[in-house]
């Protein structure tokens, strides 16, 4: 019955006959459920056996109380100093001074929130906000074959990217599954600056080097993640702030949306990308990390009279949802391909070959089965991430992200639904999630961004 502790039904009968007929004392006496699996295999079985032996029902006896650790933990892990590496960005102490609430993202410490989501989102939408994005993975690709290599590694094309421009990238594995996204900027004929998500850098670097091993391609991959501290300056007053810190022409004509420029900001050499994950005019500024704190201070000083405010990950998550920008690993999973994830526009089937091409060709020929779509909540409550979308009592999809938007004054989210349901206005029944006794709310599908669907604010 309990494989870990080698407790049989006979042992339980014996224990009960010896007077350990209460389930909790039976557990302690027999050690049933107390092995390395911590009851995962025998918790409910042992309760049912005990109930049968004592002539009761499980409803009467109940279950034993599960207590941490839920996973077995070696004593060595609990003894001595906890050598769990922690990574801090160059602006870590600046965030501490702003009383940031921290979150762990892998080994990184990142500010989750400084004030409130409402205040931070308001600053970004109406003035200017700044977020520390130093944790993004960063790679430099050098060499005559770097452009062709990037074409090979992605469904979209980079060899035709002009110097001084940046382009969105999403990368697939051989099965056509989205494994990472970010941007690629071309800084020279044979020089590309690439960003990955915070959590996927190591996998992407290894993936690139695996494909280059034994190859005659002239491509060097250099991990520059720790070299650069980076901020994203976003909001209608972002240009006013950066203009005070550089001699470069930062007008929309000289530095338009998707420009990638090298220059000086606050007296420090910088790579500036005009991109906007949160849907506002944005400047992603990368500087050598030894100057990260200097840049942070300079930006705040320059924006003080313009209403500048720091914003954290929690606000960023709300702002990007208003734009329906997906997060790889949150809104996608190990079965998500770019076509069904709404990234079909970047799959260039006319390219000679690329990783995942055959798998994506199959998806294109069979058509979408499911689609990633936006939704707004029309009923009460904010569904939990992971909550089921149901129809006639059956699960037909799931919520991947859902937040209350202070800008829109309603709850919005992203979800996977059958492709035929991914149409504007389609009504949804959504469970609120674990611990809500199966309660549901209502919503309706939204396929275009909630905020600035034309993207005019990005191009200001």
């Amino acid at each position, binding site marked *: 019955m309990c494989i870990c502790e080698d407790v049989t039904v006979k042992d339980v009968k014996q224990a009960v006959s010896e007077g350990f007929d209460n389930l909790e004392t039976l557990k302690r006496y027999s050690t049933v459920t107390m092995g390395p699996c911590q009851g995962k295999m025998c918790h409910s079985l042992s309760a049912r056996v005990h109930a049968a032996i004592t002539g009761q029902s499980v409803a009467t006896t109940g279950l034993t109380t599960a207590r941490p650790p839920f996973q077995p933990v070696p004593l060595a892990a609990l003894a001595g*100093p906890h050598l769990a590496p922690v990574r*801090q960005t160059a602006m870590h102490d600046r965030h501490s001074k702003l009383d940031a609430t921290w979150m762990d993202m892998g080994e990184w410490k990142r500010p989750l929130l400084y004030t409130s989501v409402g205040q931070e989102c308001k600053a970004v939408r109406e003035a200017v906000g700044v977020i520390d994005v130093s944790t993004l993975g960063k790679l*430099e690709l050098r060499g005559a074959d770097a452009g062709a290599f990037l074409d090979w590694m992605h469904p979209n094309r980079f060899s035709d990217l002009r110097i001084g421009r940046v382009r969105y990238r999403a990368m697939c594995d051989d099965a056509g599954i989205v494994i990472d996204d970010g941007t690629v900027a071309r800084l020279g004929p044979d020089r590309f600056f690439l960003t990955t998500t915070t959590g996927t850098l190591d996998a992407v670097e290894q993936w690139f080097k695996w494909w280059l091993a034994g190859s005659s391609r*002239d491509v060097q991959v*250099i991990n520059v993640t*720790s070299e650069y501290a980076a901020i994203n300056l976003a909001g209608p007053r972002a240009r006013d702030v950066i203009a005070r*810190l550089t001699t470069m022409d930062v007008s929309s004509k000289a530095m338009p949306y998707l420009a990638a420029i090298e220059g000086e900001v606050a007296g420090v050499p910088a790579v500036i990308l005009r991109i906007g994950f949160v849907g506002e005019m944005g400047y992603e500024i990368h500087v050598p990390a030894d100057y990260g704190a*200097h840049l942070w201070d*300079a930006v705040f000083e320059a924006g003080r009279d313009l209403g500048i405010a720091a914003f954290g990950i929690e606000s960023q998550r709300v702002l990007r949802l208003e734009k329906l920008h997906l997060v790889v690993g949150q809104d996608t999973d190990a079965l998500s391909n770019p076509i069904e994830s709404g990234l079909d526009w970047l799959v260039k089937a006319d390219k000679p070959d690329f990783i995942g091409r055959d798998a994506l060709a199959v998806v294109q020929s069979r058509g979408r089965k499911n689609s990633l779509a936006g939704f707004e909540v029309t009923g009460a409550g904010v569904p939990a991430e992971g909550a089921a979308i149901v129809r006639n009592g059956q699960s037909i999809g799931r919520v991947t992200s859902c937040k209350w938007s202070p800008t829109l004054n309603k709850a919005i989210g992203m979800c996977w639904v059958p492709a035929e349901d991914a149409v504007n206005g389609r009504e949804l029944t959504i469970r609120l999630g674990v611990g809500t006794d199966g309660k549901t709310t209502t919503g309706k599908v939204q396929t275009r961004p909630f905020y600035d669907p034309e993207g005019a604010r990005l191009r200001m």
Partner: protein
Amino acid sequence: MTTTVGNANRPVRSSPLEAVHARLMARWRADGARWPLDYGNPSAEAAAAQSAAGLIDRGPLDKLIVQGPGAAGALRGASLGFHPGRISYALINGPKLQVWGVAPDEAIILSAPGVKVPDLTGPQGVAVVNLSSSFSVLMLIGPDARGILAELCPADLGPVAVPDLQIVHTPVANVRVTLARQDMGAVPAFTVLAPRDYASYLWESVMHAGAPFGLVPVGNHLAGEA
């Protein structure tokens, strides 16, 4: 038109351990860079390092990575020594350069800030990238340096396995680092090249492991320039 706002035109290069040093009442370098010259009593720091162990946040140092199948040829062609697995020193028109042969096709050149390094670009198959901010350079110096590292590092750092100027890739406190033995005269010393983001964590971990040995923070006065 540029408007000068506050310190915008006075960039300050900061150690990732700036806050740690500030708490330790560091006296900063004369050039303004936020690395500690000492912690108020340089002779006591030197004495502790000679008799037990001292931990130095070395910097600021410039770091250049030279990578690719043509790296070895480019380095040797520029009269910079290159020996995979070893540190070489080079004197070219002035201050000393350290050439760390971290892999058969990769070197990291360490130098004092602003030191001119020969041009290594040009040949196909060589990428030269400035990674001056990427790495924190921590030096553990003193007779107990090896014993302290043994608390945190699974590699054999004994004098036979790791002679002077030998490079080892190993975890220290579960962080992947490049470590080298770099004795200061007769005093044993190990230099750890670690991604700067881990600097605070590594500093605290090493100081914790070194407390029973009498480990103390030591300023850059003891290490000098590159």
